[in-house]
């Protein structure tokens, strides 16, 4: 039992960034254990094309489970597939991404295996027979270091907590077709309601432009969207006050009861910095705040602040970013 299994997600034929981040956690663990890194990639026929990218990020073998019934994530089928694979392998550790899908799948899998799970971890190391993980709790105000002595040990990795690590000399990745017959799920999806598909996902975007009540009305979010477009690699987020007003969907909400994000750059537009909002974004690498109230709490966590009217500052910033990016 010295191998490590990574449960990957793919979108548009390529593994998601969170899968590469999970690999960056798995590779050094497998090296320390003297084992291999296997990746389980399940999805529609053709999903196996992503194996090359996974190999370039440290996978030794990619177990490809392709089936038309796996086009969309189905919890019961996937939990049965993953638990079955873990049981039949020699896996000491199983690494999930703590995306929406991973947060649904990992606990189900753990319970099927009658083992436990360390969720939403930001680091994983080996300490003798156990794993030692860190996990932000209490809305990020406390960092817990936890000892996980279960075997197999399941962990889910917080998006953005580790950087994907391409391997210097990627060997040939072994691709193994996994026979799969999705189980009939008792929970039936009757309709999928997609948000704005042009938008990058908040968990994956390197830059997030978030708007607060300082924007005064739903239509003024165009300012935020324009700035996101100027960056080119940005997603749009919002505060709870904004989603409660119905200016943006709940899925855009960042904070204690919304998404927890860690982008490279977080631009807070007209956001005062309520503690519940800070809980969702304080781990961003660089924070910029634009607010007319120089006493706003957001300035205490921001690396750079501009005191001013968002209706004046944001268009100027959008123009400047466009120029800077050529």
């Amino acid at each position, binding site marked *: 039992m010295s191998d490590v299994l990574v449960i990957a997600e793919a979108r548009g034929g390529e593994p998601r960034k969170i899968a590469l981040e999970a690999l960056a956690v798995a590779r050094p663990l497998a090296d320390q254990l003297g084992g291999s890194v296997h990746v389980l990639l399940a999805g529609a026929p053709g999903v196996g094309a992503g194996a090359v990218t996974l190999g370039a990020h440290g996978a030794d073998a990619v177990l490809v489970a392709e089936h038309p019934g796996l086009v969309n994530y189905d919890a019961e089928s996937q939990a049965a597939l993953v638990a079955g694979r873990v049981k039949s392998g020699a896996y000491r550790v199983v690494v999930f991404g703590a995306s929406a899908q991973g947060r649904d799948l990992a606990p189900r899998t753990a319970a099927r295996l009658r083992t*436990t*799970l360390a969720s939403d971890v930001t680091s994983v190391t080996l300490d003798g027979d156990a794993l030692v993980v860190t996990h932000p709790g209490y809305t990020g105000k406390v960092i817990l270091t936890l000892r996980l002595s279960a075997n197999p040990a399941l962990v889910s990795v917080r998006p953005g907590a580790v950087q994907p690590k391409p391997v210097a000399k990627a060997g040939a990745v072994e691709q193994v077709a996994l026979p799969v017959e999705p189980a009939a799920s008792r929970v039936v999806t009757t309709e*999928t309601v997609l948000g704005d598909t042009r938008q990058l996902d908040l968990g994956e975007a390197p830059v997030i432009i978030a708007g607060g009540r300082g924007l005064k009305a739903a239509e003024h979010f165009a300012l935020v969207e324009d700035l996101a477009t100027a960056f080119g690699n940005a997603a749009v987020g919002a505060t709870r006050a904004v989603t409660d007003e119905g200016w943006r969907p709940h899925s855009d909400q960042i904070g204690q009861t919304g998404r927890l994000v860690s982008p490279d750059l977080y631009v807070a537009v007209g956001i005062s910095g309520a503690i519940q909002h800070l809980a969702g974004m304080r781990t961003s690498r660089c924070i910029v705040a634009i607010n007319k109230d120089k006493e706003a709490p957001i300035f205490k966590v921001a690396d*750079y602040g501009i005191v001013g009217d968002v209706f004046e500052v944001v268009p100027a910033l959008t123009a400047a970013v466009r120029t800077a990016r050529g």
Partner: protein
Amino acid sequence: MKIAVCIKRVPEMDGAFRIAASGLAVDETGLKWDISDFDGYAVEAALQLTEKAGAGEVTVISLGPVVVQETLRKALSMGCAKAVHLACDQVPVDPFAIATALAAELQGGGYDLVMFGKMSIDSANGAVGLMVAELLGLPMVHACSKLDIAGASGTARREVEGGGELVRFPLPAVVSIDEGIARPRYPSLKGIMAAKKKPLDSRPAQLGNVALSVVRMELPSARAAGRIIGEGAAAVPELVRLLQTEAKVL
């Protein structure tokens, strides 16, 4: 309709946290406690379901030291019919141990629906509800922002990245509640008085094997003090320069 809602007592997050001398827990001095946010939504959603159906009752369950009975009483004062306290010295961080104890209590309880908050606000794992569903062998819908029950089946909207999914499922089932479903009601004075007479049973929690434990708790290192680089649009060129040369994010 018989509904169970599993809730957790957590400190309010507005205050400043300190670490206890043991280094293994937060210092509870001066902290205020309440039902965890998402669990409060679950209680409200459960009460609304029984009110709409005009029948049924809500049982609220919590695990932990004797002080969690205060939190259970609050849920009773909101309108839940009865409460169960699963007693243990402290709430373990191991979600499977908690799920094992809850599943043992829920098994054979005849519940049509078992509800959880999407996650607790303190440990933020969001694992226990899903684990309980697996242990009970019931269908589970995680992160519901809408929920409706008609006869022996339910419909829900669950939140996923980039949108939502409308789903249908048979009862009995387990669901966890996301934001957007309902704001918890405040207990009325009448409700508070009535709660004192409602049944609250306490029995030992049948925790499973604990394989996840706290080694250390620390406060995160403070972010270096940021700077206000200027006022109005005139400050934009300097901001862009810093994002390019210092932060290297542009």
